[in-house]
């Protein structure tokens, strides 16, 4: 029995993140891109309205697009957590099954992210450090609510317990994966912005509309390509901490070794 579930070093966790991402590239891109398509359609529609001079309608469309973007990101996040969980535990998974398995937790994810975001924002006002501390303390709230269930209070408390003693490591992982995702999005968006600038001559309204359309397309492509990286890393951190602190790997091995191992493993998976 060779198990992936064992305590991983920071270096191995980072490598495992990119290993999963690259080996399941189309699935992760699909999970992020599908909800973002609706946002892209709204943004391009908004850009077309700019060209026709409907500024009020454009402002409303922009507002709706911003809300939709937030919801789309959170829906993808829930599905990504489910996909990573299944891959990490060696279970089959697809784009459809990831969305299907996570649909019960999507509303909770949207609410928890909003509440945690407000709390982190408030904490950031007090000279940044408290903000970082709160963000790290509750960094696993989303994997917890998707994989274990529970609302805001339960998820944040559980995240606080799990991350205790490992927040420095989570900070390093957050930072490095975040920087890499940022570099990748810059590389993707830069050529599109150049094209938009080179094409944008003549009518000022057309130029603005074209620039906004290209920016929306660039954001869509970069979000779809690298949007899942941080979520993959945090889901792996969640499992790593459960292995380290709760002997999760031992529980799973025991479930698989039970005389009626199929049923036992299914029960253990249901408790995950």
């Amino acid at each position, binding site marked *: 029995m060779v198990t992936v579930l064992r305590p991983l070093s920071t*270096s191995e966790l980072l490598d495992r993140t990119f*290993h999963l991402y690259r080996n399941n590239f189309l699935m992760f891109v699909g999970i992020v891109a599908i909800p973002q398509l609706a946002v892209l359609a709204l943004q391009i529609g908004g850009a077309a309205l700019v060209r026709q001079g409907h500024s009020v309608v454009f402002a409303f469309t922009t507002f709706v697009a911003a809300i939709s973007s937030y919801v789309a990101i959170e829906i993808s996040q829930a599905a990504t957590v489910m996909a990573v969980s299944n891959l990490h535990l060696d279970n089959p998974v697809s784009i459809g099954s990831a969305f299907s398995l996570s649909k019960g937790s999507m509303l909770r994810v949207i609410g928890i992210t909003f509440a945690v975001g407000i709390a982190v924002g408030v904490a950031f006002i007090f000279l940044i450090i408290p903000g970082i501390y709160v963000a790290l303390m509750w960094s696993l709230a989303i994997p917890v609510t998707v994989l274990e269930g529970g609302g805001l209070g339960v998820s944040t408390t559980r995240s606080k317990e799990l991350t205790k003693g490992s927040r420095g490591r989570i900070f390093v992982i957050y930072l*490095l994966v975040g920087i890499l995702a940022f570099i990748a999005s*810059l590389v993707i968006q830069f050529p599109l912005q150049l094209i938009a600038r080179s094409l944008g001559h003549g009518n000022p309204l057309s130029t603005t509309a074209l620039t906004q359309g290209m920016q929306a397309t660039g954001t869509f492509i970069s979000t779809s390509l690298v949007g899942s990286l941080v979520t993959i890393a945090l889901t792996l951190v969640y499992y790593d901490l459960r292995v380290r602190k709760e002997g999760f790997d*031992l529980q799973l091995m025991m479930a698989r*070794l039970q005389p009626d191992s199929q049923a036992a493993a299914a029960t253990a998976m249901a408790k995950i």
Partner: protein
Amino acid sequence: MQSLDRLDIETPEQIALELPLAGIGSRFLALTIDSLLQGVCLLAIVIIGVVASAGYSELVGEASRFFSQTIGAITLIVVPFCLYWGYFAFFEIWWQGTTPGKRVAGIRVIQQTGRPMTATECLGRNLMRGVDIVPGFYAVGLIVMMCNAQNRRLGDFVAGTIVVHDKAIETVTPNWGEKTDAEPLQPELRKLVPDDLVLIETYLDRRYEIDPLVRTTTAQQIVTLIGEKAGVSKPPEQKDDDFLEGIARQLRDNAAFR
């Protein structure tokens, strides 16, 4: 299922080597640490250069201002240049494929064949760093690494090198021992399968790292599971860990799962 990318090499002696490849994550971690160290060194050199230049100017007076400026220029231009380009090559040659950052990340550069890297290869891969870094933030290197299964950047392709995890990835496998006469195998234990021993040994290996309450519960669960499967029961006075150690020892000593 593999947790990380691996490279299989067969040596001329027909010995199969399985090397765990370092991925983008660990290499970026190492690069970040090395860049921070380079930044600190650079800052120190700039401060020393400015202070030395000013001090020399005061000592020799206005007539030798030219020399003080030359010293300042050398310190501020040549030394940082050497530090940037020489840092990686110096450490990788001196420390056999590692740098301070790579040591922290637990990775090492070696030849594609599994042999240690030579100085020429080291210089070659580090000269290509100038291309990998274009247009900034190692963007070219990052794209190239994403597009090949061995996570190699352009410098690695030129020098024929790969970056591997220094310490082999640990897999939990039973430690098969030679048969001894110390303690004969109880016939009941023959009902156990190799994975049962893996479970016991994984627990014994990790027991001091997990939460004490979880440890107690897990030990009890494993004792119950193994006891039911093998049809043996733990004496009430014996500790769970001692019972499991006894079973593992018997299985290992008798090489039960050949």
